[in-house]
């Protein structure tokens, strides 16, 4: 508590300096536009950035998806209608991706729909267990918190290069396995093991983030609720399912939505680690879009944009369903 107020005091002092200059200016502005329009004054800087660097790119992408050529500027690009979408949907048999002209698009989509549920489930499961452990009255709590959060601070490129180095044929893991008498495995050569490590490494790198959020949620649950449960000699499992889970539900929902969105966006780690291989076993949608639109020559911005809009549509539908479910849950 004291640390927090100290921090607040410090921020206050720093904030006071430029405030001297801005205050009269903003006051003049308030006189000029009137108090009713002040919220817009507060909103405009952020909104400008959002419009310029988030919404405008999406609209440009929409235009890209219906135009051809490898030109960057929209005014240089001829309209070609739905040709890019038609290319993506050009399949001999919709049940077999090998018959599709853009089979990698469908494989990436398939991989993403397998990867996301598995990764999110493992991520939230592990993060929840870790948060529960860290929320107990144990020794070295701060130390353990630090340990679990540390990988979050490493850049994706570093995480990938580090694990690639550990998992390679002559890497540390195989060295360790040889030392204890196990047969070394060439981890990144087999589709199944490569997929396993993709999930493992992304969970390893990001679970600390969700652990901390869940831990915060756990700490917000009043102690006396548990005390009451103990009076009734409820089992730990029972107090978990009857008290912890229901009270944690709102936080879990936030964690769930964030985890899904970030899981769908997974790119850097796997691009460096496997390049989407073996074959296309770990190629996810964002990598497909990156390769088509950026790492190829000539760059097919149109096809990449069409793929990205289909991905966006899928995400939007998912979020809508999610909101419907959570709203339904709230009514119970």
């Amino acid at each position, binding site marked *: 508590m004291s640390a927090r107020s100290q921090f607040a005091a410090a921020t206050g002092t720093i904030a006071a300096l430029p405030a001297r200059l801005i205050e009269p200016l903003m006051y003049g502005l308030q006189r000029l536009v009137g108090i009713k329009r002040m919220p817009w004054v507060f909103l405009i800087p952020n909104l400008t950035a959002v419009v310029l660097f988030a919404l405008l790119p999406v609209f440009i992408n929409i235009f890209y998806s219906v135009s051809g050529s490898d030109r*960057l500027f929209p005014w240089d690009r001829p309209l070609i209608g739905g040709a890019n979408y038609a290319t993506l949907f050009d399949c001999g048999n919709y049940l077999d991706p090998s018959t599709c002209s853009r089979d990698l698009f469908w494989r990436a989509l398939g991989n993403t729909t397998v990867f996301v549920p598995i990764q999110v489930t493992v991520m939230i499961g592990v993060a929840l267990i870790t948060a529960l452990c860290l929320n107990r009255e144990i020794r070295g709590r*701060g130390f353990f918190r630090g340990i679990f959060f540390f990988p979050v601070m490493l850049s994706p490129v570093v995480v990938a290069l580090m694990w690639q180095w550990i998992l390679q044929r002559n890497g540390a893991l195989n060295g360790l396995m040889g*030392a204890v008498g196990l047969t070394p495995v060439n981890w990144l050569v087999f589709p199944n093991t490569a997929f396993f490590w993709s999930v493992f490494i992304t969970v390893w790198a990001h679970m600390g983030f969700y652990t901390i959020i869940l831990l915060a949620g756990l700490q917000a649950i009043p102690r006396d609720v548990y005390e009451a449960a103990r009076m009734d000699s409820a089992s730990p499992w029972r107090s978990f399912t009857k008290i912890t889970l229901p009270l944690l539900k709102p936080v879990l929902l936030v964690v769930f939505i964030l985890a899904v969105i970030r899981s769908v966006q997974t790119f850097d780690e796997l691009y460096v680690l496997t390049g989407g291989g073996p074959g296309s076993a770990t190629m996810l949608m964002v990598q497909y879009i990156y390769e088509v639109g950026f790492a190829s020559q000539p760059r097919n911005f149109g096809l990449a944009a069409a793929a990205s809009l289909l991905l966006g549509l899928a995400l939007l539908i998912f979020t809508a369903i999610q909101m419907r479910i959570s709203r339904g849950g709230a009514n119970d």
Partner: protein
Amino acid sequence: MTDLGVVKTGSSIGAFITRRRGRKKLDWTDWLTYVYLLLGLVIMFTPVLWVVVSSFKTPANLTEFPPTLLPYAAETVIVEGHDAPLPLFDVTTEEGETVRLAQLRRVGINAQMIDPANPEERLTIPVENAQPVRQIYLAGENYTNLLSSTGGMIWRYVFNSLFITIVATIITLIMNSMAAFALSKYRFRGSNMALVAILATLMIPATVVLVPTYMIVAQLGLVGNLWGVILPTVATPTGVFLLRQYMLTIPDELIEAARMDHASEWRIFWRIILPLSAPALAVVAIFSILSRWNDFLLPLVVLTRRESYTLQLALASFSTEYGIRYDLLLAMTTLTALPLAFAFIFLQRYITSGIASTGIK
């Protein structure tokens, strides 16, 4: 007597571990917790520790298989008549004796060696009979090579990374909190739409809009400029979301009272709301620092000149078309992660208490 002593220390260690706040005895759930956390410690931390230890290995030591636990280097000796130091080997002779020889040259399965005490006579030894003499050696030259191979540019990279991280974070904090203030403390037409517009951007992967974003940056004339990386990243939707949730919990009476005192809206925001939002600001600051420091793809496209490189770009450039320089890479990894480790140790407690008090609901 000795037995008693052992028991005593044993029990005191046991008591130390099993002692806990509140109750005296550990039950099975506590044991489970410890087992889980120790397992987690191994999985989460050994890879990092391995990188730090390996960053002190020589390139030759790094390519060895099976890898050595600690950094080793071959012991060398200077022999008369040879300019370069020669590596030493323990050689088992045919009679079963072990002699220490210096290697001149190795050709496949045989090596030419000499006795440092008697440098005239050359011996041909099968490689399988020779064991390199090694000692623990910390290859600090990985770090000094890093400095020299970047031609002293590393300080420029550090400056660029720091500049981007600090400036972007300050702008993010101010802009996001202004927007959050407007969206939490005013009722006005279009507020829902603005909120939805900001939060919807959460779903746009940066990679997917890389090309249009680059085009806009180019149109603004910011290619190769650090601002070309800062401006596209400042309007973080999570920041607005967290700050707004927090500000909703600040009682409106405070604002009403300030208005009675004829405080301007800006003054209310700057003097009342902002200081009260400090915990949430700390959380947003930490997330912003982490993501800006680790940003990769946008800087890769926008910052094209070496003097505008960030640390992460410099790091990636050690993995070139001609292979990966693991010695430099590992040293650089350790160096880039260190500042964050310190920042985290310093700010750690604000993260949980901060998120807890944002009252995510």
